[in-house]
């Protein structure tokens, strides 16, 4: 009974994620795309909770469905030319893109189905504690590099948005 509910939850989550992702791509209005993208990120965050990654789920909610969604909506507003809703047109490569994406998903389905699933699994009792421990001991160098990357991105975004000679 418990397992059935768990399976049902996964399929509902998968439908929400894939449905909203399709909506992002197919929507005619760019603002609708941005809002559906937020819903998709919320679905992915709940999937992280489902997979026992609670810290990552919280991070997904805060960064993606909070920060990235706001950034994208602001980008849509700042780059709108006409009155009326901002459009979201396709280019001339639609068939080619559809073929490439379809080929990719077919190959991936084949690979996943033909590979035997590994046994085992790992669930941490306290993800925050363990992640912090790894980040500040074994993985301290990537942590510092990520900090530098964030600083560079911050300065770069400010300079890009200001333009040259406007400081």
């Amino acid at each position, binding site marked *: 009974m418990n397992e059935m509910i768990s399976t049902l939850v996964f399929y509902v989550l998968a439908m929400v994620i894939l449905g909203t992702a399709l909506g992002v791509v197919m929507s005619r209005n760019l603002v609708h795309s941005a809002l559906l993208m937020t819903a998709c990120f919320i679905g992915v965050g709940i999937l992280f909770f489902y997979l026992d990654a609670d810290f990552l789920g919280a991070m997904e909610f805060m960064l993606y469905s909070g920060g990235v969604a706001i950034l994208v909506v602001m980008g849509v507003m700042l*780059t709108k030319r006409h009155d009326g809703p901002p459009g979201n047109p396709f280019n001339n490569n639609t068939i080619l*893109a559809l073929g490439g994406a379809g080929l990719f*998903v077919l190959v991936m389905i084949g690979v996943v189905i033909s590979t035997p699933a590994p046994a085992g*699994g790992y669930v941490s009792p306290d993800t925050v504690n363990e992640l912090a421990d790894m980040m500040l001991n074994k993985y301290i160098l990537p942590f510092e590099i990520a900090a530098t990357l964030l600083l560079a991105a911050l300065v770069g*975004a400010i300079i890009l948005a200001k333009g040259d000679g406007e400081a």
Partner: protein
Amino acid sequence: MSIGLGHCLLLAAMLFSIGLYGALAKRNIIAILMGIELMLNAVNINFVAFNRFTVVSDLTGQLMTVFAITVGVAEVAIGVALAYRIYNDRLTINVDELDNMKG
């Protein structure tokens, strides 16, 4: 039938291909950025699923996801700043019209 690694990998593959289609078939830079974000999320799902369902003894996969999220957020900030800059200079963010460097 309980949910295993294969289900998560299939979901991530479908999400990735939807994002790939969005990134390849759109005209607007912001829409292309949205497609790239979907692809990044699919990769994150893969990391977490491998950490959850294969034989590991620590949270390396989840830690990699933390770094992937960091890079993804920095990327979207730079991308939106670039789109704003291009719009300021040329009054368009249609990628089909941005072909100055075409040989």
